[in-house]
């Protein structure tokens, strides 16, 4: 099923694709460790968010964060982007907002006003299973075993399958933090996971 990236549907689809893949299960049988993907919002993100479908997808992801945890967005660049930039209340039911109207505001925004804004995704891998994918509010899950950091435009290369994680990390487009020795010992698992991530059909 084609889904929008970023969106809650995409997170669900990722879980489904990974957990139904026998090759991944085998390659990651011994893997223990979580990942925090820090997707830095950039010009490319703004351009995509001017598409109401994609903006709705982005908001649906933030909407998966329980309301009591959304406090953490307040005063952060990501929170400012949502509240001051898009003019949405963090207490609102974000999935039901009028994305058509909100998308019109994107043209007036400058990404430089929200420097440091990011969409953080936490992925919990354990012995061949992707146990959980969730949006991490600012400051949460910072103790993840691995962190993959980079601009939205470069993450898009990964999720669209136009490039793979190894190429993006080797070329410096995505920054990887964590125990690289452990990762190199489990490269087959990492490679299979990122290939699966890039295989999810996306709605444009």
């Amino acid at each position, binding site marked *: 099923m084609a889904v929008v990236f970023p969106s809650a549907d995409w997170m669900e689809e990722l879980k489904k694709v990974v957990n139904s893949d026998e090759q991944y299960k085998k390659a990651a049988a011994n893997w223990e460790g979580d990942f925090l993907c820090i997707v830095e919002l950039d010009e490319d993100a703004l351009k995509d968010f001017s598409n109401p479908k994609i903006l709705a997808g982005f908001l649906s992801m933030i909407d998966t964060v329980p309301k009591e945890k959304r406090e953490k967005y307040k005063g952060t660049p990501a929170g400012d982007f949502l509240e001051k930039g898009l003019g949405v209340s963090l207490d609102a039911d974000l999935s039901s907002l009028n994305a058509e109207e909100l998308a019109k505001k994107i043209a007036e925004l400058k990404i430089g006003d929200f420097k440091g804004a990011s969409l953080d995704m936490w992925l919990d891998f354990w012995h061949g299973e992707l146990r959980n994918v969730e949006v991490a509010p600012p400051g949460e899950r910072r103790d993840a075993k691995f962190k993959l950091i980079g601009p939205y435009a470069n993450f898009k*290369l990964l999720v669209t399958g136009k*490039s793979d994680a190894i*190429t993006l990390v*080797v*070329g410096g*487009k995505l920054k990887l933090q964590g125990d*690289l*020795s452990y990762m*190199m010992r489990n490269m087959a698992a990492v490679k299979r996971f990122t290939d699966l991530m890039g295989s999810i059909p996306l709605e444009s």
Partner: protein
Amino acid sequence: MDLDELSEEDRLLKEEVHRFAEEVIRPASVELDKMPPEDRIKPDSPYFKVMEQMKKLGYHKMLLPEDKGGLGLSPLQVCIMFEELAWGSLGFATALGVDMIPFSCAALFGSEELYEEVVVPWLEDDKGKYHGCWCVTEPSHGSDYELCLRDENADKYGKPDITAEKVGDEWVISGQKSAWVSSAPVATHGGVHVPLKGAKRLTDAMFCIVPLDEEHGVRKGKPSDMLGMRDDPQGELFFDNVRIPEHYVVVAPGPFYGIFCDQLVCLTSVGMGCFGVGLARAAFEEALNYARQRVQGGEPLIKHKNIKLHLYEMFEKIETARYYVRKVAEHVLTKILVQGTNDASPRHAKTAQIYGKKIAYEVAHEALQIFGASGLSKEFLIEKLFRDARCIIIEDFTLEVLGLEVAADIVDNYEKDYYDVSQIMRLYEES
């Protein structure tokens, strides 16, 4: 006789490449060997004619998988091709090997933009318009680039002779690469290892693609007059404020640069191991044929027991080297090109390189001995093969340096059944 079960396709490939090596490569290599260095790089040199034909045949695409525009050969087929090419000429095999390095690395690790801009024209080239080279060593740093990767005192190696600095959206490169960069005098693009300006260590570097022309600020030195491998011109490169765009950086500075270097040497080790086997076989066959014809003490040399024993020892070396190198090639090429996990074992790969190179020199040495005084004469091919074999044990890092690197890997990691990068990581964590 090949102990591997060759398919019809493998057999045809072997025959085709061998015929090309025998009829085209070897005569050109002998001609080039006798020419003055500056004549070897003139437009009408046999060097360019052979390279053009290799491009026409698509040999430059032999390492890349089909989805990257390559021939999608099996590891065994890659080994067969490398061995046959080196049987024809170590120089031309090396020229083809270094031609592939910048473009194949760009295809495997570079951006889509770089692939379209640089790799696609190279893949489609059937005229020898594009030629790559591998720019590692510098006047002050030969095998240092290999040694420093796992050295706890990596800052003792001194300053690099070339550095890169980010200026705006571009990288600016200034400095020099050594006089023994293979194919540098004839190359259009370099896969260049460049430390960052102000870096304390040679390992604080990146790998990038640099167009090698005066328009970009690159000047080439005179081709070197070397002992052997004279069929692959070598020479210096001078970089004067050479500007390259960000997307020409294939491997960014940081720990993955160290891992990339390790894995690239695994790939080149497969090539060098096969080259050693091909060169050794060439020397062996020359000696065997000579021994069958040459009469001494009233009978052909092959009737003499000491000569027979020499021939056996040469055969033993070639056969054991070939199948070890092929086994390692299967491991390395599967990890890097098929699975894309880049976790090939450096100690096994380097051992294949060392062993292939070592036996090439030993076999050429023994073969020349069978020729007696004739072997010292330029009239016989063995004289050239011996000089080439003397070069191979220095080319692509000396045997001693490679041996020390393997030893260090064994001491630290022998019990581990995976590629351990913790030593490399420590180096980057400290810097």
